């Protein structure tokens, strides 16, 4: 049930420098049991993500894209199949290995920001940098997203776009190997969304962080190196995007 064949796979491999993939998944499936009903969120996904690339995962709601990303990020485990981060087997990692993995390597950006309401912008970042090994200074992270002047504001005093940029700063402050963004613009208007996407793009470029952005918004695919289409728990199509455009030029 593979949806991109070996030739395509080789093709991708060839086109993205001679590096080993950051992520590799084999036959990934995920079944949620909701009472008596079983929901097949993922139905066998084989994929690879490469260092430094910006991938957009496109799919309608219910396509399984969030589940896929949660598994990559070590927040969830597959029902079957395998997932590797470099050489590390995340499928069989213990709870504490996953925690350590998230702590050191993964930066998350969520649709609803999930800032801690009782902490200021800068504190929302330092709560993460304090537990990682080689973080940047929280203020530096805020500067990267252009919010250094709002560092002492509480989330309730920030607009939605600002909150999401703080969330991005929080995600990248630990200098993660991968940045996983789940519908980062889902709750934002087009203009603010562009600002947020620009921030993500800038991080990807400047820090060379492997970045995956989940969205149901086709336009966002334009800023990606590659676009992976998901439908019904399967990869339906993978597009190379040699003519990617700047995030600020995206409109929807």
């Amino acid at each position: 049930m593979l949806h991109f064949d070996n030739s395509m796979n080789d093709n991708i491999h060839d086109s993205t420098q001679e590096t080993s993939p950051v992520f590799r998944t084999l036959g990934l499936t995920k079944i949620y049991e909701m009472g008596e009903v079983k929901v097949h969120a993922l139905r066998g996904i084989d994929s690879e993500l490469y260092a430094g690339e910006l991938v957009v995962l496109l799919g309608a709601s219910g396509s399984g894209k969030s589940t896929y990303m949660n598994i990559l990020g070590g927040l969830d485990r597959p029902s079957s199949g395998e997932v590797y981060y470099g050489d590390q087997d995340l499928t069989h990692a213990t709870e504490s290995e996953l925690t350590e993995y998230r702590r050191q390597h993964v930066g998350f950006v969520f649709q609803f920001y999930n800032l801690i309401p009782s902490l200021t912008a800068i504190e929302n970042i330092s709560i993460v940098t304090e537990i990682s090994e080689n973080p940047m200074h929280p203020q530096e992270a805020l500067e990267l997203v252009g919010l250094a002047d709002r560092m002492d504001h509480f989330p309730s005093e920030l607009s939605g776009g600002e909150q999401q940029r703080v969330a991005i700063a929080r995600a990248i402050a630990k200098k993660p190997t991968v940045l996983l963004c789940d519908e980062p613009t889902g709750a934002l208007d087009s203009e603010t969304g562009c600002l947020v996407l620009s921030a993500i793009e800038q991080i990807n470029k400047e820090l060379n962080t492997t970045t995956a952005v989940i969205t149901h918004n086709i336009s966002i695919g334009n800023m990606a190196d590659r676009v992976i289409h998901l439908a019904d728990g399967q990869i339906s199509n993978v597009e190379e995007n040699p003519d990617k455009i700047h995030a600020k030029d995206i409109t929807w």
Partner: protein
Amino acid sequence: MQRTLHGEPVKTINRKLFRDLQGTWGQALAIIMVIAAGTSTFIMSITTYDALVNTRDAYYRDYRFEDVFASLNRAPESLLEVIQSIDGVDKVESRVIASAKLTVEDFSEPILGQVVSIPDIGEPSVNRLYLLQGRFPDSVRDDEVILNEVFANAHQLVPGDSLEMIIKGRLETLRVVGIALSPEYIYQVAPGAIMPDFKRFGVMWMSRDAVGKAFDMDNAFNNIALTLQSGINAKDVIVELDLILEPYGGRDAQEREWQISHRIFKSDIDQLEQMAGMFSSIFLGVAAFLLNIVVSRLINTQREIIAALKAFGYSNFDIGLHYLGYVGIIVTIGLMTGLAAGIWLGQALSGLYMEFYRLPYMEFELRLSILTIAVLITFIAASVGTLFAVNRAVKLPPAQAMQPEPPAKFRKSMFEKLALFQSLPQMSRMIIRHLSRKPVKASLSIAGIALACAILVVGTFFRDALEFLIDIEFGLAQREDMTVVFTEPSSRNAYYNLMNMDGVLYGEIFRSVPVRLVNSHKTYLTSINGFQQEQDLHRQLNTQHQAIKIPEQGILLTDYLGEILGVNVGDEIELEILEGRRPVEKLRVAGLVNQYFGIGAYMNINSLNRMMREDDLISGVYLKIDSDYEQQIYDELKDMTRVANYESNRHIVQAFNDTSAEMVYIFVGFIFSLAVIITFGVVYNTARIALSERSRDLASLRVLGFTRGEISFILLGELVVLTLIAIPVGMLIGRILSWYMIQEIPKEIFRLPLIIEYSTYAISATVVIIASILSGLVVRNRLDHLDLISVLKTRE
């Protein structure tokens, strides 16, 4: 950057902790109140009990309270050496103790005085006096007395005042030279009485020489008090002492356990111990339970934040620690407050008791083990609640936890299919659905409020039970106005003399002899009262509170005495009479008497006199009098040499209210206040948590066009439903706890019936309802300021 004392930067996660505390201060405060009330009840109760026991022990030791005592008719002073030489005896004091009628200026009622001799020179070696004012009597003067403080205070007598004593018809004037306390008379109780009466019975000390002259006891004594060397068994000494005293009319030497003051005091302390133990464990248990619920629900509201922290790479351990810290701070503040309040209240309550029992000093001390128990129980309860909630939160995969909760599964319950439900407006349906959808949560809320209501009931019911007891005992059982006791068993003439007095309406004779009741190795020392078959004034009641006829044959026992001796109706029991010819007889138990107050054995007066092989003798008469003649009767009785004592039931009830009942009320008053605090803490928390759990739904409803009043109705309606269910449940639990307390409380002086008046239930319900209304107002205020936009912005 903020730094701690050790120079390390304050971790951001700790800053979150403090901010969260600030943000939830209302709830935190309510939890602190619950913990503080729980621990302070625990500490107050136990330290008070400890203080009383320690003080009593120290007082007994320092003032050489007798270990063994005996009374006899008359023995020469030379016998003292023989007694001193008994193995194991430490100090011995020979004394003369005699009764006399007293007159105090401005007090017209009868007073019975007990004169106790003290050595002419030096202090008594046993039962020493704690002199509060004045001095010891001068041995060359024979009219100087020291008064027991309670008696002196009751009549406001001070050194320099005088009072009159009637000895064998002679009137003597005594001068008060000192006021003292004695371990022997902590409870100053007249012989044969069970309750102290400070005004109408007084103990006083006179020099041996003076007492000897007044009562014809020169160089003789009629009472022995001694202390034992440590590790000596009192029983062995008693056997020898009885042998020595037998020829001198010795009446069974007794251990301290049987000393009346000690016995009542001990019963009070035991009662306090039981109440302290019960209340403190109930309160601490309830507080712990509530803490557990409240904490776990509070953490539940942080579910998404926990998920986010997990996503950032915080381990379950880190998160657990974080919330333990949060709860730990609340608990610590609660414990410190409770500890401080507990010590303060304990000192206040001990002080009241010290005053109440007229103890010369107070040994107040907080046992480390008590402190440790309070700290451990509270922390364990809090930690279990926290960890349980955190564990549940971290178990959920973070990805899922951050999703908005899926619409809860609703199924139509049986109830909803009823036509009644169908006819309810939509909002009422929502209330019922929400409660029935989360039955566990709803039951926990109900349990919390119900427990609060229950401790209010337990804290109040004592008054009902005590009042009921007095109503039955003095309204239905002991209906006489007055009891007259003769100096010695007398003929019927004494009865007729009383009947001829003006104002005496009716009288009933009785004969009373001291007895030891024996059933195999169970024994009990009491008196056996002989009555005529039909009693109209002084009656024995059955469980339905109906009068029982005194049987021709056999003996009636107080129900509790039957329990002590392990005998039932129809069983045989042995009677060792401790007076006259001291016959030993076996009698069948003909019935049990339902008696809440005191302990006794009852039989037909003629059978009793036959058993004693004596004539038709009476010990006293129960009288019904015309209240207009009360004073005149007192005056006449005072002058009758044959009359040893007369006391009115009114005074007994008053004395009971002033002493044992008062002891209970003081304690219960403290307890009730603490129960009120707990109630408020619980109800407020229930309301606040409901608010934080539902605010999103309610804001959505507001957006849909519901008014503030309507959403308040939904949330507060839930609180009302919970409260209304909880109150009857709480009453039931309160009744069960009260029943349990009654079982555990010492029963020797009185036995509480399980009587809880409607008013007690009403008071408890009212407190809960007021707490609900106040909490509802706070919540209502919050609901009015619900931020609709932000709620909708962060959620789809």
